[in-house]
Structure formats: C-alpha cells, structure tokens
C-alpha cells in the first residue's frame, strides 16, 4: 500500500471535520416561520466547501513549505524535558495551570510566577533580573489596567 503524504493525511482529517460539521448543520433547528434562508444554510455551504477543499488538498502534491522542517539535532539530544516539543507541551500545561489559578491566587502572583518560571525554564539564568523584569512588567500592567483603565483583575492572596 502506498504511504499517504502529509497533505493527504491533513486532507483526511479535514474531511472528517467537514463531515462532523455537516452532521451538526443538519441538526440546527428550523425557524418556526418559513423563511427563504434559515440558520442552517450557511453552515451547510461551509461544510460542503470544506469537504471539496479537502478533496483538492488530497490531490495536491506537498511542497517544501508544507512539510515541517527537521528540528535541530542538538536540541533533540537534550534531556526529555528540554526538547523542543517538550517546551511546547510544558508551556501549554503552564498556561492551563495559570488559567485555573488566576482567580484563587490573583493576577500579580500568578502572572509573575508564570513569567519568571517560564523564562527560567527556557534557559534564562540571571534570576535577579528575571524576577525584577517579571514583577516590574506585571505590576505595571496590573496598575495600568486597574487604576487607569478601571479594569478589575483578581487580587487573590495579595491585599492589593
């Protein structure tokens, strides 16, 4: 069996999305009064368009720009937690944690910790500068948002 190229794999994924999208479009309820165009028409057009485009993508030969570049072998040889894809995963997890802790511990603490922690994780080792910049920027943003623009940000554990 011939191996599928990157465009064909993407096309199959997109076709699945299009089919799911169309299935949901058919479940959109009709408006009680008859109208020339109802809420489901546009989604149906979009679903079929995506399906058609997936077919075209399946037939399109991938070019160099369609295939992700090889990652730096030196970077790949690093310990698991410091490899390129690990950085993306850990940053994503840090964002999820930040989102969950923002209200309980407050904007200043959560944002400073995130900024300091990620800069440290990405390899910045001047901890004093890191803390000063992270705290300085976060405080400046916090004060601008709360005092100048009257936007409420959670104070959390700090009595700010």
């Amino acid at each position: 069996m011939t191996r599928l190229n990157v465009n064909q794999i993407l096309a199959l994924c997109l076709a699945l999305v299009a089919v799911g999208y169309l299935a949901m479009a058919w479940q959109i309820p009709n408006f009680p009064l008859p109208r020339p165009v109802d809420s489901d028409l546009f989604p149906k057009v979009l679903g079929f368009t995506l399906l058609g485009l997936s077919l075209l993508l399946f037939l399109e030969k991938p070019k160099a720009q369609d295939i992700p570049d090889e990652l730096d072998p030196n970077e790949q040889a690093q310990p698991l937690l410091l490899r390129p894809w690990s950085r993306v995963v850990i940053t994503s997890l840090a964002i999820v944690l930040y989102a969950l802790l923002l209200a309980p511990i407050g904007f200043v603490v959560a944002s400073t910790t995130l900024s300091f922690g990620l800069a440290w994780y990405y390899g910045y080792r001047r901890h004093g500068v890191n803390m000063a910049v992270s705290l300085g920027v976060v405080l400046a943003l916090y004060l601008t948002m709360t005092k100048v623009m009257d936007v409420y940000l959670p104070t959390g554990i700090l009595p700010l």
Partner: protein
Amino acid sequence: MEAFNNLMYGFGIALEPMNIAYVFFGVFAGTIIGMLPGLGPISALALMIPITFAMEPSSGLILMAGVYYGAIFGGSTSSILLNAPGVAGTVATSFDGYPLAKQGMAGKALAIAAYSSFIGGTVSIIFLMLVAPLLGKVAVSFGPAEYFALMVLGLTAVVSLSDKSLVKGLIAAVIGVMISIIGIDLQTGTERYTFGAAHLLDGIDFLVVALGIFALAEVFYMLLRGGGGKEQPRNAIGSLKLTGRECRDIAAPIGRSSILGFFTGVLPGAGATIGSFLGYSMEKRLAKDGDTFGKGNIKGVAAPEAANNAACTGSFVPLLTLGVPGSGTTAVLLGALLVMGVTPGPAMIESRPDVFWGVIASMYIGNLFLLVLNLPLIPLIAKILDMPRPLLLALILIFCMIGVYGMSFSVFDLLLLLGFGLLGLGMRLFGFPAAPLILALILGAIMEESMRRALQISGGDWSIFIDKPISMWLLIIAALSLILPLVKKAIAGARARA
C-alpha cells in the same frame, strides 16, 4: 477646499494633547514590537486592543494607526541590523539593508528607511484624503448583494496573493468563517455549534483567535526552533547622515515607490509585502546600477521602505470607505473598531467624521513622530534586540494572557487562547496561511448577514448576485483572482517541461 476643511477638522481632533500622546505611544510601541522578529503589525495591533477597548473610538484608532506604521518601520530595523525581518513587509528591505549594515553603514540604511517611510507615508496620506471620500460616495449605493460579493473578493484576493498553497489558503478562510458563526444566530435566535457551552453563546471573540493564531503560535514556533534562533553579532551602527548625492539618488525611487505602494495597498489582499517587493523590483529594473541591488545599494532600501509605508496607508482606503479590510492587519483594525462600537463603511465619513478625519490627520502626525522618534533613538532602540529571548518569550505570553483576560474575565477564553495558539502552530508548520483565517473570522458574520439579507430581498433567488452588475463583476474578479494564479502556474509548468 472641502477636503482641506475636513482635514483641518481632523487636525483639531488629532492635535488634542491626549491624542498626540496616543500617537507618540503607538508609534513607539509599534516600532519596538515590530522590531522583534516574528511579531508583526497584526500581533502588535492585537496586543493593543485591550488598551483601546475603553477609549474614545477616534483616540483608539489613532493609537492603533500609530502602532501600525510604527510596527512596519520597526520591522525595517531588525531587517537591517539582524537580517531578521520582524514583519513580512520589510523582507525586501533586508536585501540591501543588511549588506549595508555589514559594511558598517547600518546608520545610513536606517536613516534612509526612516526618511523613505516618512515620505512614502505622507504622499499616500494625500492620496487617501482625496480618494477615500470619492470611493465612499460610490459605496453608499451598495446593497447586501454587492457587499457579499465585495467580501468574497476581499477573501479570495488575500488567499490568492498569499505565497502559500491556494487550497490551504481557502481552507484557512473557510475555517475562519466557521469560527465566526459559532454562537447564537442573531437573525433567528438559534444556537449554532455551541456544544451546549454557555461561554460560546456570544461566539468566540476575535481577540482570542488573533492573539492565539499569531502571537502565541509565534512563541510556540520559536520554542520549537530553539528559543528563537541564535543571536547574531552586530556591527557598529555608523553615521546616520546622508550626502547630497545620496539624497538625489534616492529621491526618484522614493517618489515612484510611494505612488506604487499606495495603489498596491488599496487593492484588497495586496498590502505592504507585495507593495515593497513591487517597489524593489521596479527600481532594480529602472536603475542603471541595478546589478548592485542585493549588495548594499541605498535605492534598494529606499524603494521598499517608501512602498511599504505607502501601502499601509493605502490599505486604510477599503477599510474606512467600504468597511471591508483588504489585509489581515486591517482585519484586526476592523475588529478593534467593532469592539469600540464603530462600524466603518461609507456612512462613517458622514456619521463619524471625527474618527475618519481624525485618523487621517493623525497619520500626518504619526509619520512625523516616526521620523522624529526613530532617527535619534535608532541606536537606543536597537538595544532592545539584545533582550534575552527566554525573557522576551515569557513576557509575550503574559501580554497575551492579560489581553484576553482583561477583556472577557473568562478562564474559558484563556483555554481557548491556548487552543488557537496550538492551531496556529499547526497551521504554520504545515504551510497554512493565517491571514485568510483572521480576515474570514472578521468578515464571516457580516458576509452571512449580507448573503441572507440579499436572499430575503430576492425571495430566495440566488440569481440576485449575478443580476446586479456591480455584484456580478466583483464575483467574476473574485473567481479570476483564484483561477489566474492556477492558470499561470500551469503555463509555467508546461513551459518548464517543454
């Protein structure tokens, strides 16, 4: 005379002390953000939206316009100093700017970039002032069918001019429209694609998508590429002064490229990138010393810089007069305006003259600031490029978070931001252009509304889109914009085989 009086009215607004401060801040912030490789005007504008949210619309747009030209100019700085264009529109500048920097003439190249940007911007503002109201008068006669066709044209033009695959561009556009219709259908009150989540009833805010697809995806991409690439040693900046002969040499290229840039910017989908490349290649062809282009010719810096700034101003024409953005960047601007409660379009010149003429006047002031601010600060601003990349990436993340949370106060939106960041990374890795998605996201809801209104009027008869001549021609041009690149490619392929 009427244009002059209106402009004076605009100056009255733009010269208010707070608005001057906003232009100054916008140009400064835009220059810095634009300098950072990977962060272009779209990211810069998206990061500014939370700040402009509570402002007067005229002040908000004045600030964002300043950010826009600042970001384009900032991109030139990193193009010239590091050969790392912060913005696609300044790629052409690096062809001759970086060789000049390597010869120890970075100061000269940066000064030429500043002067050319100033002149390019100023020339195109004059054109904008004269053309926009005329176009606005024509656009008043547009009905829903014409608007629908115009938006289709805007989308196809952006897709067809992208350097990536046409099919992938169209897929990105379709996904953008799909995202735009999530939530309650305002015409019937029906829920669509909300998956029963109350957070999705109002739809997905475009800021979440814009910051995710551009800024956060860029951070992820830099992380994959080893934290943003290796730092390069830089040569001394050198003198900023130009000789009389050099000024004479660059005068004509600046003039020609300014005009070319403006008209390129007006076309939907073109904008600064195409404008700068057209300006560069035109001057290379016209110059007697064309063979020295790419090796450090000052005309090779002047032409793309004048053209890209002129194109930025030109791209305001369809946005302000038709309410249809011609590029990803102006799509973000449109989104920001809608957030501020202003709907751009032909009626805006009459209904919100403060916004329209205030912005035009602020462009003059912004260009002046660009020159005054950038020339003396060039050596200082260049130091920002030395900021450690790990710290920079962490701070960009914080800006994204506060941008989203400060606007919606929703943890759900922060998670959505992450989702769009990962989607943007995937798009970038697999060669899907992001601009069509963001443009489609902004246009999607208006496009559907126009289509449905047109069909309501015609009683469901689809021929309304081809019965009206303007709508028909716009759709024909839209189809041609997709077909012509394919035909061109097929001919080139056949020639290569022959």
